[in-house]
C-alpha cells in the first residue's frame, strides 16, 4: 500500500503508523519532521509551507514506488503538511514497513533526503524582524 497526502490539517503519527503495520513486516521505521525554534541562533516564530500540489503528490509517489522496488517495502505512507505551522508542529511523517529492520531504516533515510531535493514544497521562516524562503539563495 502506498498513501501520499498533502494536508492543511495537523498530521497524526498514530494514523500514519497504523497504515503501515502488517503481519509480514518485522521492521517499521517512522520519520517525523517538526518545526525547530531557531535557525543559526535566530528565533523562529512560525513556518509557512506551500506546495505545488499535483506535482508534489506525483514526486512523492515516485519516491514511494522506488522504495517499494528497491527495499521491498510492504507499505509506504508519506504525509506532508501545508499552511502555517508553529514550533513543534509536525511538517512531515514518513512511515515505512519492511520484512526486516535494515531495509526500513535505509528506505526511510532515502525518502526524507529525496523529498527535500525533489518535491515542490517550500517553507518560509518567519522571524521577529523579517522572513526568509528557506534554501532559496546560495
Amino acid at each position, binding site marked *: 500500500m502506498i498513501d501520499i497526502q498533502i494536508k492543511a490539517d495537523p498530521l497524526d503519527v498514530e494514523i500514519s503508523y497504523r497504515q503501515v503495520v502488517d503481519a509480514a513486516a518485522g521492521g517499521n521505521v517512522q520519520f517525523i519532521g517538526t518545526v525547530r525554534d531557531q535557525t543559526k541562533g535566530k528565533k523562529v516564530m512560525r513556518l509557512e509551507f506551500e506546495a505545488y500540489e499535483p506535482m508534489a503528490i506525483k514526486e512523492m509517489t515516485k519516491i514511494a514506488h522506488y522504495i517499494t522496488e528497491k527495499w521491498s517495502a510492504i507499505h509506504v505512507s508519506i504525509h*506532508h503538511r501545508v499552511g502555517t505551522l508553529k514550533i513543534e508542529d509536525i*511538517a512531515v511523517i514518513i512511515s515505512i514497513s519492511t520484512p526486516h529492520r535494515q531495509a526500513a531504516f535505509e528506505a526511510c533515510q532515502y525518502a526524507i533526503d529525496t523529498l527535500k531535493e*525533489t518535491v*515542490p514544497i*517550500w517553507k518560509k521562516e518567519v522571524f521577529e524582524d523579517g522572513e526568509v*524562503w528557506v534554501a532559496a*539563495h*546560495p
Partner: protein
Amino acid sequence: MKLRISAYGIARDIMNGSSTDMDLTEVKSTGDLKNYLIDTYPAFKDLLSFSLAVHEEYREDDYLLNDGDEVVIIPPVSGG
C-alpha cells in the same frame, strides 16, 4: 507563443503574482524561457537555482514548449 506562467515560493514574490499569461515570440524551449525570465526579473539570477515544470514534470533546458502550455517555475525546494 502564448504561455501561462505560474510561480511558487520566492518565484511568486519575484514575479509579484502567482500566475500570469505571456505572449513570447522568441521563446521556443524551456531554456529560452529561463533566459527571458532572468532578463526580465534579474532577481532570478540570485537564486541558488530554479527549474521549470511542464505537465507536472521537471524539464531540461532543451524541452520544446507548445502554444498554450502552462509552465511552473520551481525555485529551490525546501519541504520536510
